[in-house]
């Protein structure tokens, strides 16, 4: 994409780069990933999430069984595949995590601030992750089907696309620095080109995921938070507009692709 011929030096460099293959080895992890797909430890979080969904908690001592994820109160089947979506009751575009936060506040009386100001994998935010594991499992294998027709969804998509290319921080990175070209890797990790429908679906449709490198279950909010950390920006606020906008952009771009939820990652 951004290839430019500058000095003769760099011109020579690109020729030489093709002449000296790094290693003959193509880093193909298909076999490895296939072996992990059966018995994804994310199932342990899913079990916890299912129990949490049905457990009366919070000041109102209520369960989440009346939580409306967009398909009606209590409907979990297929709900995640259609998120983020515009919710009339909050007047906001919400992803799964921010919607669960709303349900916990309205049904159970658990203040959203506890989640927003909390830490990943701890307290109420940690509980949301387990709930996410449970909810997304009920959209596993379904096509990503995000409705972009509402004006607020359209706006979020447009803002997400802009945010995707927004360079900032100590290293000048944008999301596109790593996810804007086909077939690239950071070290041995392959990077989906989110600007294509196919790879946007692969990216969106494979998170949340269990990460084998640290044995943690990461939601998309967590994934984006750590992308920004590595981008060397300031810290994104949990469920803030930028996280929702990027989610709408990715999910919308990947519409029609298959969700493989929860995923398992390196």
């Amino acid at each position, binding site marked *: 994409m951004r290839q430019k011929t500058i000095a003769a030096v760099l011109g020579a460099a690109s020729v030489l780069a093709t002449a000296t293959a790094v290693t003959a080895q193509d880093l193909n992890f298909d076999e490895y990933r296939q072996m992990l797909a059966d018995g994804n430890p994310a199932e342990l979080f899913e079990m916890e999430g299912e129990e949490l969904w049905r457990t009366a908690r919070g000041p109102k001592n209520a369960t989440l069984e009346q939580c409306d994820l967009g398909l009606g109160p209590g409907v979990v089947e297929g709900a995640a595949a259609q998120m983020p979506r515009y919710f009339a009751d909050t007047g906001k575009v919400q992803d799964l995590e921010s919607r669960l936060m709303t349900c916990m506040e309205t049904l159970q009386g658990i203040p959203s601030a506890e989640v927003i100001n909390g830490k990943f994998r701890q307290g109420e935010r940690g509980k949301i992750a387990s709930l996410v594991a449970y909810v997304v499992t009920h959209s596993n294998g379904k096509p990503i089907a995000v409705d972009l027709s509402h004006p607020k969804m359209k706006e979020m998509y447009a803002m997400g696309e802009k945010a995707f290319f927004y360079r900032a921080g100590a290293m000048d990175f944008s999301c596109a620095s790593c996810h804007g070209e086909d077939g690239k890797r950071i*070290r*041995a990790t392959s990077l989906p080109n989110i600007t294509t429908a196919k790879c946007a679906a692969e990216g969106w449709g494979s998170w949340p995921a269990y990460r084998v490198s640290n044995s943690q279950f990461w939601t998309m909010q967590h994934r984006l938070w750590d992308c920004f950390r590595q981008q060397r920006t300031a810290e994104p606020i949990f469920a803030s507009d930028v996280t929702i906008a990027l989610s709408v952009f990715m999910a919308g771009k990947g519409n029609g692709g298959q969700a493989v939820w929860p995923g398992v990652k390196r």
Partner: protein
Amino acid sequence: MNNQRRDALKAGGGLGVFGLLAAAGLIKPEMALAAWNKSAFDAKSMDAALAAIGAGKPADSADIQITAPDIAENGAVVPVGVVSNLPKTEYVAIMIEKNPSMLAASFEIPEGTMADVQTRVKMGQTSDVFAVVKADGKFYVAKKEVKVTLGGCGG
């Protein structure tokens, strides 16, 4: 699905855990006495680890299959499966040559159970993975190399 949780056994103090399990009728009393093979798990060389499980110098065998990826995306979780086609296989051990603790796991295979186990192990670096099998009283071995790579931004 979660009725499992309700059957959870709360381990109390006092009784040794396996004693407690045995008392609860969940395991055989013999097993409660079978101690974890500390010297084998603490062994710092392959020879010492093999000696500690009583394997000595096992013979190479083509009847042992190791299922593991040629290349792993992360060393924290490497799937390893062992199938032994040796008659009367009674024991299977998985060892990682370049790990600080070489013996990863061992399995007692009672009669009626197939010599076909899978688990996942940590690997600090590219290494040979060994499957040591005891069949009809004798020890055999097979190995397979697994390459371990590094990913991510490293920050």
